[in-house]
């Protein structure tokens, strides 16, 4: 912990139900919070937040160049920021360039053409649509 402060880095940990899929040091991390993107650098105030489906961008990872960006697609979840450590807790995480663009588009098509009746179903549909859109965006950003 002490050496992260000296180096001005944040530790980024991504945890899925199956495993800890990433544990790395970086200059900053951008998170898809429920209401928009939020960047977290060293010394950020502690918070717990809800994530939307979207991209986590890890900037300036240790061992790479200062501007290198690693992009990961996460399917919602939570984030905990404390003591220069960003812990992303999500059900699914994968590298954004592994997202299959055609499959993502097909998913969006399917979700948006589905009929929803009732408040809850509409909510669920909007959420699914939003997640599918994020997936398509992640695929396009390659």
């Amino acid at each position: 912990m002490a050496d992260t402060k000296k180096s001005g880095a944040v530790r980024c940990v991504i945890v899925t139900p199956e495993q800890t899929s990433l544990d790395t040091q970086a200059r900053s991390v951008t998170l898809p919070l429920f209401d928009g993107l939020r960047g977290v650098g060293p010394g950020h105030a502690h918070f717990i937040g809800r994530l939307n489906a979207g991209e986590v961008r890890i900037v300036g990872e240790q061992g790479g160049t200062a501007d290198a960006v690693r992009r990961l697609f996460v399917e919602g979840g939570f984030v905990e920021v404390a003591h220069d450590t960003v812990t992303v807790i999500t059900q699914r995480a994968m590298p954004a360039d592994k997202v299959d663009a055609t499959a993502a588009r097909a998913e969006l098509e399917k979700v948006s053409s589905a009929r929803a009746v009732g408040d809850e179903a509409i909510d669920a549909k909007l959420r699914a649509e939003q997640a599918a859109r994020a997936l398509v965006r992640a695929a396009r950003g390659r």
Partner: protein
Amino acid sequence: MAKARALDRRRKSVKNIRKITRTMELIATARFKKAMDRSIAARDYTRHLAKILENIGGVGADAAHPLLESRPTKRTAVLVLTGNRGLCGGYNSNIVRQSVALLGQWKSEQVPAQVSVSGKRGISALKFRGVDIAERFTQFEDKPEFAAVAPIGQEFLEAYSAGHIDRLDVVYTRFHSIAKQEAVTETLLPLTPPQTGSGGVKAKLASDEYDFYPSAASILEEILPASFLSRLFKCFLDAAVSEQVARMVAMKAATENAGGLIKSLSRQYNRARQSQITGEIMEILGGVEALKK
């Protein structure tokens, strides 16, 4: 000669069986290690969820979520996790016994139970006992994946919030250690509320450090289903690990037993052969004696 030859044949077949059981033991050992690694890797997620829950509990968000509220049980659901394959000692039968006892209890209380079973062994055993099985899963082997478990959990969550079921019990084999696994019944729905009683002051201090976006209550709402799914997933992982351990132990015992059997058969075979030779010599000697006369 006939007896000796029959003994030899039996010895050969026992030797073959020993080869098979030993191989199965080795395979089960390898699978167990892999399953164990997966199970350990999965602990992080649960730990982090628990930490967030603790912080939310500390901030005093009211824990009045539908998933936490316990209703009178009018309809219940039971999920039974068994293996697809046998040859693993009492693993499957323990689960079946446990679930039959549970179902009998619900029956005596006149509560209709919707039974879902994973694993061919459990499906056939429960069918034999006349249990009406609503849903069957046979796709889970030694490596259950979260992506496969999540839809099942989602279905239960939906049924619970729609009021189709008031309770969900999972019958599975909990893994304590290599030496101890036990068939248990765990109630997953309604969820047991996050424990805030322990170290309340400490939890409060910890949570003062955090801001919640959008709010503690809203995060609680989202985190409870996630925590349910992760607990369900843990049941599947535990069942997979326990199955491999059970098979490993059973096959080890079978191999040892086959070794003992081979030893005793060899002894019998040698004795039979020796007495046969002795008999033949006696016959020859008798013939010689007769010729001398």
